[in-house]
């Protein structure tokens, strides 16, 4: 009896949430785009993937006055990335991990790298490490260097604060003129537990003025 009530409440809440999402999309999208995006969010819901990021992309596109087909394509690409991230990070991955992992995949890192990072830390949240990995890539750190650095730090049990500091320091080094790759290589070796002599990545090319 109690279980039935709990299940009933859960279904009711899920229904209300879906209705709220629909209302937001309805007010922002044209009917054709709405229909396509709703199909995609329904697929995500059926696969138990996070839906809010997909709704968010659609709403962002509407607010930025993007054309309907572009919004649809963005939501579709995001859905594919979410699927790939969960496949790589495992069924136990939390929604924030899946969303962060999707961002990393969209930045061009293969799923095998996500799997490696997960295997180095099967039981801790990878949200922050993956956000930092994506940020490094966005700042021009080569894919190999960035992914090796995050993997090495994760293997060394680096804390979220260590990843946050790594990101900030690399950014400051880049602003100061260091090449993104060199900054990342040296900074990650400064994290406790990352062997100083570990070849994080091949020596990168120096950025020319």
């Amino acid at each position, binding site marked *: 009896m109690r279980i039935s009530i709990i299940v009933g409440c859960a279904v009711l809440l899920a229904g209300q949430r879906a209705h709220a999402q629909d209302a937001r999309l309805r007010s*922002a999208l044209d009917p054709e785009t709405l229909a396509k995006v709703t199909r995609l969010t329904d697929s995500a819901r059926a696969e138990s993937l996070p839906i809010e990021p997909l709704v968010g992309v659609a709403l962002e596109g509407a607010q930025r006055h993007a054309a309907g087909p572009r919004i649809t394509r*963005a939501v579709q690409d995001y859905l594919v990335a979410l699927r790939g991230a969960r496949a790589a990070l495992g069924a136990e991955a939390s929604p924030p991990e899946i969303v962060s992992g999707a961002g990393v995949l*969209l930045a061009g890192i293969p799923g095998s790298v996500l799997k490696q990072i997960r295997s180095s830390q099967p039981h801790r949240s990878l949200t922050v490490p993956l956000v930092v990995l994506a940020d490094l*890539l*966005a700042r021009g750190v080569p894919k190999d260097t960035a992914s090796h650095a995050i993997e090495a730090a994760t293997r060394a049990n680096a804390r979220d604060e260590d990843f946050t500091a790594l990101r900030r320091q690399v950014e400051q080094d880049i602003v100061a003129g260091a090449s993104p790759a060199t900054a990342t290589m040296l900074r990650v070796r400064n994290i406790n537990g990352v062997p100083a002599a570990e070849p994080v990545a091949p020596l990168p090319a120096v950025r020319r003025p």
Partner: protein
Amino acid sequence: MSDSADDSERPFVRAAAALRGAPADHSAEIFALQQRIRAESQTHALGVVELSTRRPLARHPWWLGIAAAVVAFAIGIGVGRGSDRTARAGNSAANGQNDRAIAFAFVAPGAHNVSLVGDFNGWDAHATPLERADGRTTWSVAVRLPPGRHVYAFVIDGVTWMADPQGPLAPEQWFGQRNSVIVIPEDRRS
């Protein structure tokens, strides 16, 4: 373009070789950076937190010299640094028990209005306006955010979208411009 290049290509091959220059010597750059890391580690040992300026806003010359937007209490990824201020009305973030109040700030002396947009308020540029925090250049607002990864940006004067120069960048650029990311600590996996 190699030894097999015919005569017509040779000038271009020579020009390309000249442009490439001598092989890069990384040692000086690496040494300089190592020195900087050592110096910083001494500074941090004293508990000094540096809030330095960030990359220039080159595409918006009237903001050159502003230096930076600041995510107060949420520097970097905001892990564990949220303030406990009451959230402003106007954002649609859920008010769950695990929500954290996060203060956002943005330095824009020439702006007439600044607002915060993100996945937590439906990217609505009217939902979460910032107020001038110091009466002049710094705009700020506090919002309650549930745990997780949130994507956000600032909208200046209702038209110009900008990522937070202090925050991590989101990798996805669905509509041509990057946003920023903030992570509110989630419940740890067992």
